[in-house]
Structures are given as structure tokens and as C-alpha cells.
């Protein structure tokens, strides 16, 4: 009688995910963020606790767990207690669908895929589940009995709900290419057509990732929780474990967005250039390592954004989402649809679209640089004399 039945394996995977992912967040991602941000800011991050600061996550965890559990007077106790939970559970649930790798062989007759489950409406389920996370934020802000938290929670909710639309629309464009909502199918289709969906879906990718940053309340869209605005917004009154949960929820959402971006756009667990003989050595890296490398790249992008950009004001943020990203997403859908319909049954349309988008992207990049150079030249001309010249008088 086999012990490792698929059911048992699924339970093991669930336990591993729920145990490992928060641990990785606490120990690796938070530390990486603080260290990398530090390097970008000409300083070292935390490097005292443990070798190179590796135990900093443990120290933070102990601190948060041992903090006094405060509930503000006249706060809604039940909701105050439950809203961090509401913020975390949907994010952790969504982890169940992320395909970290293809089937691996555990022993002679046991092999299991590296994901908890794969349902045929995977993407839709993910979007739906992440929408539930918004409740945690709204209720958290409201339950604190604090004007600032209320404002922060409402802002955050409006932001999250608004940016789900371009995110979904961007994914619809990819849907047209894959004809399936199942995440594993998406990866397998990318394998079959030898083309990662980022190329024909370049616009969709940008829209998706930027919406993803907005969805997780990260810089440059972190107005609802900015310290200098409303003193940390909706999670002002939360301390200790409750704050840890909000924090965890936010970082798990970051991981989800990154993993979905990798899966849908960057080929999931696929190695790059599988058909090029010269790069066959890349096969040494196992598929789930490829996945993790790519996801780590996106998380690094999150960290990079945070240390570079100022933040958008709230009305500018909403204008960006509604007035620019949604129309762009809709137009993108039409373009992709035309490309696919023009070449029924074959993928040449997608390849052509990739080239078109690629050329346009490079052209726009160069134009932007040109514009920047011209602006800079005008600005330097307008400066008073002797500003940058040699300091010789």
C-alpha cells in the first residue's frame, strides 16, 4: 500500500508552502530588501545579527511576536482581530496554484508535480482570490477607530480595486494566446510554441507588472501606507503579530504577482533558449531553480523600484490606472486578437507581433532618451553661469 498517495503528497505540499513561504519572506526577502536598498542608498543594510545579517528575520520575528497586543479603545474588537487574517489567507491560498516546476520523480513509482493543484480556471481563481485580500485592508482601516487609518484603508481599497481591471485585461491578452486559464497549460504552451509570451505580450507584461506593483501597495504606488503621509495608513494601529500578518500578506502578494508574471510571461520553469545547442549547459539548472531565479529577478525589481521612485499622489495614481492603463490594455487586446486571427492555427502572427512590439519598444526607448537629452540640454542652458563648470572661479 503506497503511503505517498497523491492526496498525501498534496497535504505535504500545502504544509511545506505554508511553512516555507512565510519563512522565506521573513528570512530571505525582507533581509534582501533591506540589504539591497541599503546598497543602493550607499549604506549597508542590517549586517549585525548573524553572519551578514542573515538572522535579522529571526530577530524581527521574535520582536514582533513578543510585542504587547494592543487594541485601541473603541475599536471594533472582532473586526480588528480578524482583518490581518483576512489579509493573509487569500495570499497564502493563491500560492497553491503557482507551478514551481514540472513533475519530479521522488522514487521509482512516485512522481509528483511541483504545484499543489492545477485547476482549469487557474488565472481566474487567482484574480478572484487576490480581490478578497482587499477586505482585510478596508476592514483593518475602519476597525482602528482612527481617522488616518480610515482614510488610508479607503485609499488603499480604491487603489487595489482600480488596478485589478488593467491587470485582468492584460492577462486577457495572454489568454487569447494560450486559450486556457490553467497556469500549467500556459507554461506548456509556451514550451510548445517556443516563444515566451512576454514577446508578443510586451505591452501586456508592462501593464501587468505595474498593476501588480499597485496591487501590493508598493512604491511608487504606496501612498496608502506611506509613513510621511498618513503615518502608515491602515496599519497604523496594528502592532505585534497583527502587524506581522499584514506585512506577511503584502509580501506574499508580491511573491504571487512575481510568480504569476514568471509563469504567464516568462515561461515558468522553462530554461531560455532550449533549442540553441551552444546553450545546452543551461539545462543543468533544474526547472524549479529557473523559476526561482526568474521570480527572484522580479522581486529585485520591486526592491529597485522602492529605492528609486518618489510616490504618486493618489489622484495621479487613479488617473494613471483608469485613463492610461485600461485603454492601453483594451487596445492591446484588439491588437493581439488581430494578430492571432490573421494566422489561424499557426503562431506566425505571434512571432510577427513580437518583432513589431520589440521594434516599437526600442524606438520608444530611444525617443524617450532623446527627449530627456533635449530637456536636459534646455535646462542646463537655463542654468546660471558657472554652475557646473570647473571650479576655477
Amino acid at each position, binding site marked *: 500500500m503506497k503511503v505517498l498517495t497523491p492526496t498525501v503528497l498534496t497535504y505535504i505540499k500545502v504544509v511545506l508552502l505554508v511553512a516555507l513561504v512565510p519563512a522565506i519572506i521573513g528570512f530571505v526577502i525582507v533581509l534582501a530588501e533591506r540589504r539591497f*536598498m541599503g546598497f*543602493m*542608498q*550607499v*549604506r549597508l543594510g542590517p549586517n549585525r545579527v548573524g553572519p551578514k545579517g542573515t538572522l535579522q528575520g529571526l530577530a524581527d520575528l521574535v520582536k514582533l511576536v513578543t510585542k504587547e497586543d494592543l487594541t485601541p479603545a473603541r475599536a471594533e474588537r472582532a473586526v480588528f482581530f480578524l482583518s490581518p487574517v483576512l489579509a493573509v489567507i487569500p495570499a497564502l491560498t493563491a500560492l497553491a496554484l503557482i507551478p514551481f516546476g514540472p513533475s519530479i520523480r521522488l522514487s521509482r513509482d512516485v512522481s509528483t508535480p511541483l504545484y499543489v493543484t492545477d485547476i482549469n480556471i487557474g488565472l481566474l481563481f487567482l484574480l478572484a482570490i487576490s480581490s478578497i485580500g482587499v477586505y482585510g485592508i478596508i476592514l483593518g482601516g475602519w476597525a482602528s477607530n482612527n*481617522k488616518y487609518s480610515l482614510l488610508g484603508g479607503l485609499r488603499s481599497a480604491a487603489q487595489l480595486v482600480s488596478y485589478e481591471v488593467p491587470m485582468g485585461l492584460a492577462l486577457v491578452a495572454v489568454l487569447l494566446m494560450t486559450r486556457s486559464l490553467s497556469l500549467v497549460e500556459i507554461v506548456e504552451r509556451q514550451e510548445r510554441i517556443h516563444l515566451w509570451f512576454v514577446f508578443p505580450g510586451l505591452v501586456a507584461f508592462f501593464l501587468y507588472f505595474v498593476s501588480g506593483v499597485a496591487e501590493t501597495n508598493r*512604491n*511608487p504606488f*504606496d*501612498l496608502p501606507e*506611506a*509613513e*510621511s*503621509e498618513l*503615518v502608515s495608513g491602515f496599519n497604523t494601529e496594528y502592532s505585534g503579530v497583527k502587524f506581522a500578518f499584514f506585512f506577511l500578506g503584502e509580501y506574499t502578494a508580491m511573491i504571487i504577482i512575481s510568480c504569476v508574471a514568471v509563469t504567464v510571461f516568462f515561461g515558468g520553469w522553462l530554461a531560455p533558449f532550449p533549442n540553441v545547442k551552444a546553450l545546452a549547459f543551461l539545462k543543468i539548472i533544474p526547472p524549479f531553480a529557473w523559476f526561482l531565479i526568474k521570480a527572484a529577478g522580479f522581486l529585485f525589481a520591486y526592491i529597485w523600484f*522602492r*529605492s*528609486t*521612485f*518618489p*510616490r*504618486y*499622489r*493618489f*489622484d*495621479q495614481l487613479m488617473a494613471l490606472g483608469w485613463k492610461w492603463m485600461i485603454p492601453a490594455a483594451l487596445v492591446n487586446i484588439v491588437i493581439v486578437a488581430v494578430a492571432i486571427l490573421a494566422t489561424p492555427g499557426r503562431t506566425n502572427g505571434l512571432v510577427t507581433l513580437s518583432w513589431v512590439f520589440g521594434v516599437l519598444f526600442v524606438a520608444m526607448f530611444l525617443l524617450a532618451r532623446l527627449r*530627456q537629452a533635449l*530637456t*536636459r540640454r534646455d*535646462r542646463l542652458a537655463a*542654468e*546660471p*553661469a*558657472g*554652475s*557646473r563648470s570647473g*571650479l*576655477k*572661479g
Partner: protein
Amino acid sequence: MTDENRAVEHPEVPTLFDVQEMELNFGPQHPSTHGVLRLVLKVDGEKILEAIPDIGYLHRGTEKLFETETYPMGIPHTDRLDYVAAATNNHAFCLTIEKLLGVEVPRRAQLIRVMLDELQRLSSHLVWLGTSGIDLGAVTPFWYAFREREQILDFFEEYCGARLTLNCMRIGGLPFDLTPGWVERVAEFVDDLPARIDDYEQLLTDNRIWKKRTVGIGVISGEECIERGLTGPLLRASGVEWDLRRAQPYECYDELDFAIPTRVNGDTYDRYIVRVQEMRQSARILRQCIERIEPGDIRGKVPRVIKPPAEEVYASVESPKGELGFYCVSNGTNRPYRMHCRPPSFINLQALPRLAKGHLLSDLVALIGTVDIVLGEVDR
């Protein structure tokens, strides 16, 4: 009961569609108020209808203390006024008393005083840049700016022993002479500075998000600035090219070659550009002073006990925040009868309600940063 019924029976209770004015308290403890500033805001949603500053949290009775101490004892008190730019405070104080006495400051002391002033201007603008950036979400320029500021504070520490509350000027000149190598080290620092300022500018000046947060925010015309007595970068960003160092030069500013950065729009972005330009011009001034430095006295002929004639005088300098002046009334004794400080931040802060009206809450944070107040000066 329905809304309509409730409106009829309880007219004082607002219904869903009544516009409610919310009163928010901003400060005095708040990460963005740059000190203990309290603003009582009346907001309609996000829009600010009124912003009423409530100051006085840092009032220490400095002007009364001046009256009870002798003239030289007052100099450390001036450090605590604009504590970010202490040297200019000392300078203004000393200038006032030198004017009362009719004392001439020797050339070497003049050059060193200008160098200290300009280093202090750099330091103050670096603080402004870093904190402005952080308020608007750009966390990185803060660290870059403070890296430079650390070097400047090291120079001050080497010179007078203190980093922040310097007490680095005396009536008639300076307390100490420069240590050997100080000028060379400052020269090295000044050589590196334009590249560093380029670093800050690269992150912010052409950044689309930065421009969106600052262009068109807090627009004020030059006429209105003069009307409201605003000075410093606020005035210059609104088109009025007026700088006390050029209009009424003191020390050796009249022989130094520097430009007055001026912009025309009078919004937050222009004030940002003006201050960054001023940093560059400060580097230029420093270089010229370093080239002109010559051996000599560091203190003019000042009597041992300072008893000015029983007259009154006003003298001012261009501090990083604006026109900083001292009005001194002497009664012939060795203590001032009345010593009043005209602080630029106090006058500039008056304009904040006017600047903030109609803008959103997030802009208020940008505006407090752009007016660049120091509460020590506002409250004295």
C-alpha cells in the same frame, strides 16, 4: 428610518449627501512636519479648505534671554534658532553688533566667515533635499545628501568643535584660526561636489513622478511674495532676482563672482531647482574663497567689554531660508536692551495657508518641505 425622514426629524444630523468638512490635526508629532509644527486642517475629502498653523511648541524665550546676558553670551543662543544652519545665525548676530560698534572685520576673517556660511548653506540645502525627497517617497537622495553633509559637519567639528550648534563666530571676527590642512580638505570636498549634485539631480530633476508631484504645486507670484514678505528661495523661484549677498553685500561677497538662480513659475519644482542651483553656486563661492585665502588677523579691534552706544541697528544676512536679521537696541550697558530676531521661517510659514488652499493632503507634505522651515527659528 429612511434618509429623508431622518433629515426632516433630525436636521442637524448630516445625511449621506451632505458635504462634511472634516477637521484633521496634523502634528505636532508627525514625520513630515520637520519639527513640532501643528496644522489644523479643514478638509473636504482630500482637498484642503484651510490649513491653520499652530506654532509655539518650541518657544524658548530666546529674545528674553538675550536681554539678560552680555553680548558675547548671546551667540550660542543664536545657534539654536535655525539649528540646521547655525553659522548664518551667528553671523547675523555678530554683524549687528559690529555695526553698532563700528568694528571692522579683518580680511582673513571675512573670507573664513563666507566659507563657513556657504558650507552651512550647503548643509542646510542638503538636509532640505533629503527630507523633501523622503516626504515624497524618494528615499534614496536622503542618504546621498547626508553622506555629503557628514563631510561638512566633519569640517565644522574640526574647526570649532561642534557639528550642529557651532558658536563659530565672535564679535569682530572668529574664535579660532583654521587648523592646518582644513582649507585643502574643503577644496577636495568642493571639487567632488558638482558630481555629487549631479547624482541627486539624476534621481529627481527629470523624474516624471517627481515632476508630477511638484510642478504646479503651491504656485505663488513674485508680487505676492513681496507682499507677504517672503524671502530666500521662495522669492527667487517666483521670478524676483533678489539676494542679500548681491543687493547689500556683507563681508567680501561684493568681490566674489556667483550667480543668483532664479526661476519664473513659483511652484515647488522651481523652488527645488533654485535650491539645487544655489548648492552649485555655493561650491563656486567656496572655491573662490579658498583661492583668495591669505594669512592675517582673525579678529578685529574689539573692546574687552562690549558696551555699544545707546543706539539701535538692524542687520541681516542671506541665510539658506531667506533674510535673517537681528534688530538690536542698546542702552549703553554691556547687555542688549532688546535683541529681536527676524526669522525667515516665521514669515515664510505665514504663506503656508495661502499655498495649501485648494491642494490635496499629499501636496501639503510637499509644501511644508518646499517652504523649508525650521521650527527653532519660527518659535525662537
